[in-house]
């Protein structure tokens, strides 16, 4: 279950418009079963107890119109000023200038992941079952911004990213069979703009329900209106903070790894240690799957080494060297020690497939498979 609290504005300069809007939001939530500003959303993707969510009205660029920041209660530190990031607030995401009739579904979608996308994947993630990476189509004519976003999506969100430098290219990729789970579109592109592309996608039955994020270089309510009118689910402003956009896109894709999002600043040291221990435990199954893949790769290189001699020696050494550090850090000391011995032998100039070295590597492969299969 997810609970949301509608808080009073945290900004001292909030005007009557905000008060009015807050009252209307409370009234809207109340009509949907909200009691005293609190509402519980069913969240099939969350298993570890309720998630507290705060909904705070925040001015957009000092304008009189409100947008709404949805903030994890654990990180909620209301302060003076009119921005969240300058005070260490970490929004789950933003719901900007959404009409009230869209607000509750948007909030539910933001917190629980997108319908049809989040639930199954999250549950699989939580239980440690391997799942396919989500796919993202990233359309932006700006190479720099596109490459930074691609790095964030690939490395931190763990998504498969397809890049397109124009709307035309994006449409041709989609016609070619690409099926993204999420679209990220730059608003301003030559010929066909991001807004136009967004409308085209919404008119296509294949993509009418897909999550779409528009990146706008213009800030303010007009940009938000344009994006919402075009059918976007989220609008984010350029220049963007890669940390924030990584958080938001990761959440949109409902890619919650076991340890992700646990913020324990201010908690006691023992609580931090327990949480960290639990987080590392959730990473072990993933590392064991990696070990199995590495074992197969290493075995393949050994077979090649027998045939081709020293050609593949460098590959073996890279794998063994890396394994020595990583396995030890995951607490697999025997495996780490065995890898380290082979690494040192190879570093010492061993370049022939001697019986002893081959036996040692084969024994290492066996150990890796045993560790990888051990549940």
């Amino acid at each position: 279950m997810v609970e949301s609290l509608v808080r009073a504005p945290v900004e001292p300069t909030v005007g009557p418009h905000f008060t009015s809007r807050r009252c209307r939001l409370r009234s809207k939530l109340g009509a949907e079963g909200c009691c005293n500003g609190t509402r519980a959303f069913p969240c099939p993707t969350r298993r570890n107890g309720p998630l507290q969510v705060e909904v705070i009205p925040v001015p957009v660029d000092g304008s009189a119109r409100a947008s709404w920041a949805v903030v994890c209660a654990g990180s909620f530190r209301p302060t003076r000023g009119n921005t969240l990031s300058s005070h260490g607030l970490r929004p789950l995401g933003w719901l900007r200038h959404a009409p009230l009739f869209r607000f509750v579904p948007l909030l539910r979608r933001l917190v629980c992941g997108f319908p049809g996308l989040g639930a199954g994947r999250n549950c699989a993630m939580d239980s440690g079952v391997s799942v396919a990476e989500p796919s993202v189509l990233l359309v932006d004519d700006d190479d720099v911004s596109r490459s930074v976003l691609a790095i964030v999506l690939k490395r931190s969100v763990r998504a498969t990213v397809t890049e397109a430098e124009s709307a035309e290219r994006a449409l041709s990729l989609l016609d070619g069979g690409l099926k993204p789970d999420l679209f990220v579109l730059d608003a301003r592109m030559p010929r066909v703009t991001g807004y136009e592309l967004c409308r085209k996608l919404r008119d296509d039955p294949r993509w009418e329900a897909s999550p779409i994020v528009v990146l706008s270089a213009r800030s303010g309510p007009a940009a938000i209106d344009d994006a919402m009118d075009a059918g976007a689910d989220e609008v984010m402003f350029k220049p963007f903070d890669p940390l924030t956009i990584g958080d938001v896109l990761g959440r949109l894709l409902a890619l919650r790894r076991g340890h992700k999002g646990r913020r324990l600043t201010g908690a006691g040291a023992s609580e931090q240690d327990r949480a960290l221990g639990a987080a590392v435990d959730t990473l072990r199954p993933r590392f064991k799957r990696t070990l199995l893949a590495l074992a197969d790769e290493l075995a393949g290189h050994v077979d090649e080494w027998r045939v081709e001699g020293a050609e593949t020696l460098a590959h073996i050494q890279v794998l063994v060297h890396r394994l020595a550090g990583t396995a030890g850090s995951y607490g697999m000391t025997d495996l780490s020690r065995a890898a380290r011995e082979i690494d040192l032998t190879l570093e010492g100039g061993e370049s022939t497939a001697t019986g002893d070295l081959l036996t040692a590597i084969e024994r290492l492969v066996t150990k890796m498979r045993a560790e990888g299969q051990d549940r």
Partner: protein
Amino acid sequence: MIDSPAIVPAPPPPAALVLDDDESMRDLLRAVLESLGHRVLEAGSVEEARRLLRARPWDLLLCDVNLGDGSGIDAARAARVLCPDIAIVMVTCRDDPETENAASSLGVQGYVVKPFSVAQVTSAVRRALSTQQPDPVANVESKDGSPRNRR
């Protein structure tokens, strides 16, 4: 109606960049940093790290030394130029004096040798962030976890 909560100023959580070409190692380092309350992004190569370093100010760089497309020392050098106040902790497979000297000359605040314990990384990160200013006398995390100074 819920009353406005009390005003409690809080510093923003540190922004940390993890650079390692091994995904399993990035997972582990990310878990450690997130448990410390950091906001974390990952890079898998020196070039990716350079791009992310240019994209926003960072408080901490935790980086491997041996990377596919270059050395972590190159990334640390770029970080010093792009984010002068960044705290840098090097994480490497081998206790290599040459690398440690290069790192120290860049004012790297911490040095952790793989395989490491979580406690070693935690203490190295905390110490690096508490010093924050580039200092030629870098804290070095020895294999047994005890800090030692290296000039």
